[in-house]
């Protein structure tokens, strides 16, 4: 009734909108016509997937705290080793295992976090370790992500024999004793950041590939994919343009959960002596050295352990929050 269009523009200013009997007369209405100027005005800012996600993240306190911590860590890792009066390898064994805020009697500089078993400054080693640990974590996560998405995407999209073969290969790769691969690489190639990243990412992508495959299988028979197919899109286009964007949220979440796992692996392999090249430091090595002396010099464990925990917590919590943010089912 209210949508009914009126042909004539009638203005009845004196009459009430309705009479006492309750009947509404057409005269009660005013035709406002089409406002051609404002028809296309966007009343609220348009929201893309990313913008929506971003604004949701901004409103999420936990996510903001996590991101802030991570940014501080990254900045510190870049800056601190440059401005510290100590280097990561400089030893003074006469002042080994000193407590935090120990003042070096020779140079007068302060060891903010004390010194380690070889008399090296823990503070600068910790931040340098952040550099190594975070670089490894990000690089491995990126490689895992790229390889995993491509592998999983292809496997899931083509299905059938391709899928079967690719999944069996994947099972083999994840079944080969990881240690053998790492030791092989560490002894054949020179130790270094590149070797570590390579060694860690050789099997790490399998989890991501499995996840992506599962999602692609679930999505590939949906209408928008069929539509793209019927319009003659190539598989590579369908995967990259239609399928991947739809599972992007899951991929991002998985990356944030992957990073702690990589830092973990780094710590575990450091424990077996398969980590970074000495005298460089990483959180894993520092924590492992710390655990051997934590009953006598607890701070040598506490600092790297807190650094690892803080980073892991930040990534994990961020991952959780992102899951909530991205999941359409959970929007309120």
């Amino acid at each position: 009734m209210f949508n009914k269009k009126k042909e004539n523009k009638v203005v009845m200013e004196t009459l009430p909108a309705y009479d006492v009997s309750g009947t509404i007369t057409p005269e009660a209405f005013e035709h406002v016509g089409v406002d051609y100027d404002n028809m296309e005005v966007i009343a609220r800012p348009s929201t893309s997937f990313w913008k929506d996600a971003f604004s949701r993240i901004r409103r999420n306190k936990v996510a903001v705290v996590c991101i802030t911590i991570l940014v501080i860590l990254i900045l510190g890792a870049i800056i601190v080793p440059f401005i510290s009066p100590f280097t990561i390898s400089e030893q003074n064994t006469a002042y080994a295992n000193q407590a935090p805020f120990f003042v070096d009697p020779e140079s007068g500089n302060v060891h903010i976090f004390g010194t380690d078993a070889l008399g090296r400054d823990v503070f600068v080693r910790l931040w340098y370790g952040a550099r190594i640990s975070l670089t490894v974590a990000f690089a491995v996560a990126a490689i895992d992500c790229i390889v995993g998405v491509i592998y999983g995407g292809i496997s899931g999209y083509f299905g059938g024999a391709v899928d079967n073969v690719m999944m069996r290969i994947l099972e083999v790769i994840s079944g080969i004793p990881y240690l053998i691969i790492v030791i092989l690489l560490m002894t054949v190639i020179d130790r270094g950041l590149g070797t570590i990243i390579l060694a860690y990412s050789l099997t790490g992508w399998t989890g991501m590939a499995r996840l992506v495959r599962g999602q692609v299988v679930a999505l590939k028979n949906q209408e928008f994919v069929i539509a793209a197919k019927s319009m003659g899109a190539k598989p590579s286009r369908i995967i990259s343009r239609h399928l991947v964007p739809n599972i992007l949220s899951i991929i991002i979440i998985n990356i944030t959960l992957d990073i702690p796992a990589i830092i973990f692996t780094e710590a575990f392999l450091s424990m077996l002596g398969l980590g970074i090249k000495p005298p460089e430091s990483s959180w894993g090595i520092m924590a492992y050295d710390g655990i051997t002396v934590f009953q006598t010099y607890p701070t040598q464990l506490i600092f790297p352990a807190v650094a690892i925990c803080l980073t892991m917590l930040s990534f994990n919590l961020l991952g959780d929050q992102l899951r909530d943010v991205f999941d359409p089912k959970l929007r309120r």
Partner: protein
Amino acid sequence: MKRILAVLLAGIMTLSVASCGSKQLGKGTPGDDSAVLDLRGEPAEINSMKTADAPGGNVLRMCMSGLTKLDANDTPVGDMAESWDVSEDKKTYTFHLKEGAKWTNGEPVTAHDFVYAWQTVLNKDTGAPYAYMIYTMIENGEAVYNGEKKPEELGVKAIDDYTLEVKLINPVPYFLHLASFSVFLPVNQKAYEEIGAENYGKDADKIVTNGAYNIKEWKHDDHIQFVKNKDYIDADQIKIDNVKYVMMTDQNTKYNAWKANEVDVINVNGEQREALEKEGIEVKTYVDNGSWYLQFNTEKPGLNNVKVRTAIMNAIDTKALCENVRKDGSVPATGITPSGIKVNGESFAESVGNLVNYDPEASKKLLDEGLAEEGLKAEDFTITILSEDGASAQKEAQFYQEQLQKNLGIKVEVAPMPFKSKIAKMQSKDFDIVMAGWAPDYNDPMTYLEMFMTGNGNNYGGYSNPEYDKLLQDATKETDTEKRKELLVQAEQMLIKDAPLAPTYFSTGVYVVSNKLKGLTRTGFQEFDFTDGAEIVTEK
């Protein structure tokens, strides 16, 4: 989040403060006829002919009895052997065995058991890693090992059931000491054949022994339970009825287990030693005769120069290493033979004198000189130190790295790797400097010095000096012990002067014992020995 963290931290702090001293430290495990010791790992197999690992050696010392055993001062005394005669040329030993000793299967222990064991060791099918200890020592050994002579032709004979005659190749002065070593132990032929070579020594019920203790239970990777052997020939000297060896690998775990009175004896590291001494607990040490050094690849450009090698040797502050880093009582090395090794009752290292002198300035000069001779410069000189991958090995490697970089201005890299990989690299001479160490096989400088003879399997650095070889060969044949000692002193002095290695420290075993266990023997040659009067003292 911060608040939760704060509460957590506060909780941990209170826990640690509140409960300090709640345990009676050093009380020891419960039970007044039993002791628990940390064996530090699972023994490979309890087959005396094949054992080459330290835990295996410790278990054999408990349950097997050989010709001789070492007393508390590492002097060989008779065990199965009542007495022995040595021929004029010191090459023939005739052992008179004690009668009445029994194997756990009831068979008597006879001279034939020794003959059988030594012959079996030289059978290649046995796969005995230490076969060379017999065949380089006993007449016709090498020929028997290589199948050129029959086993019966080996220079060991049972003249009767209780008389054993051993013919040596050289007049080895330390043979009686060596006779206590695991590969020279007897084996009961009947038991070995009944159980079968493949299964022998793999489980508690697949071993037949003749020693002070019997293996009652062996839970792999967990513990071995010993009970006193009533039939042992000197059973009346054994005062503790039950001994349990547990296998722990993590250093913190051992320390915690000792503090919680779950184990009576553990080895501790430098930090733990410090902590224990702070709490007023007496920590014991023994000279384990481990000699540690950096071995040079003498064929690498730069390192082929003796001045460069000497410079590196004298540019490492080994005192700081021992006192500030290791902190376990290790002492700076003065040469290759550690101070605990005695010849004719005197410390051999003292006769040799101190050959290593830390002097960074002089070393730097010497290095530049040496490098110039090879057409190299310190700034461009890069060397890699090969180390093992354990935490303490890497710590030490980084110490050497920093010392050499700081004192000599050269570039040093550290390459840590798993033990087997490291050995492979050493064997293929694919290294510059390798961190190595030597634990002695017998109480004589020869065990260290022979490593550096031309062509010796352990001479990874390719050092070769005919004069040095000659000195050692002469010493081997020398029957006069004073003259022999003089030759060995000359050899060691020549060796360190040539510097195919840079001695760093002589290690020390540090351990802590609960108050209830007294008289346990621990030396470099006997990690644990209960036969020298170890007893349980119960406190009131």
